[in-house]
């Protein structure tokens, strides 16, 4: 029991560190990013939702996956959803929805 708890804490720490590094990398591409959120998860995938004003409005949600990148110290796979600020507003209003594997909007943790 203790070993599995320590392992879970360690994995969660690695996921968060990876998420922070990805968030910093992504901000360099989109400097006007308004917010970056980390979704909960225990499957070893870093899921980030990023609010980016430079995007074209689509009114839809499209996740895009990326593999690990050890050269950049990104040891975990990631999935990124970029949203326009209006789409972020509609997500909060409940008229848009995240894919089911992302959990509730309330469970997102703001990273930056």
């Amino acid at each position: 029991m203790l070993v599995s708890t320590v392992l879970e804490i360690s994995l969660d720490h690695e996921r968060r560190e990876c998420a922070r590094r990805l968030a910093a990398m992504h901000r360099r591409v989109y400097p006007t990013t308004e917010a970056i959120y980390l979704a909960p998860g225990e499957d070893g995938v870093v899921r980030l939702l990023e609010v980016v004003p430079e995007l074209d409005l689509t009114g839809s949600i499209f996740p895009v996956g990326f593999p690990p990148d050890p050269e950049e110290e990104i040891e975990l796979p990631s999935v990124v959803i970029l949203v326009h600020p209006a789409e972020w507003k509609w997500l909060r209003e409940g008229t848009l929805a995240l894919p089911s594997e992302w959990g509730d909007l309330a469970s997102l943790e703001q990273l930056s």
Partner: protein
Amino acid sequence: MSSSAPGRNVRWARAFLAQGCTDLEAANRLAEFEIARPPGRPGVASAATMLLQMALEKISKSGLLLTSSALTVEGVSRGHGAFARLVQTAVLRPTVGVAPIFLHRQWNDLRQARQDPLFRELLEIERHCPAIMGAEARLHGLAPLERPMLEYPWEHSPEGPCRWPERDLPLVREMFKPASRLRPRAGAYLRRVSDELTSYIAARE
């Protein structure tokens, strides 16, 4: 973008790609008819453009499904605007997975991409689908019927004239101007992307 997408994602990617290629072929056939259209026959330029938009959407969804085993078919197959979002997300890691297939020439940098007439044209074609125009109408506080779009008529006000894509949509007129290279370039881009995605999928089956 991961190369480990599981079997279901690859099967759906192949299906989206196949249907996208069918839409593209139909768009090309209609365009040929439009260019040589006999006098008195109804125009089909808007239908050809709409089919090009449908091809762009499906081929982009095929690419999206190939990016990761962590995506679900249900989470990717709905909605409209897959091309814009795939390209705008792929620039985060432009050399990985299917990203180089979609990131044409200098599109690695989105600001540079917006200078490319082909990129702007593809975004315009995609944007004129009713769903995205509906989202734009919502953003600007307009009624959905007040945005010009492919497929359906629209109006600028309830008292004003009703317009329809074949006669009134500037995008359609631009696409079929005799000197315009945009429609052939868009078609060539989608054919190249389709060919490269076909090879990408074959390597994973």
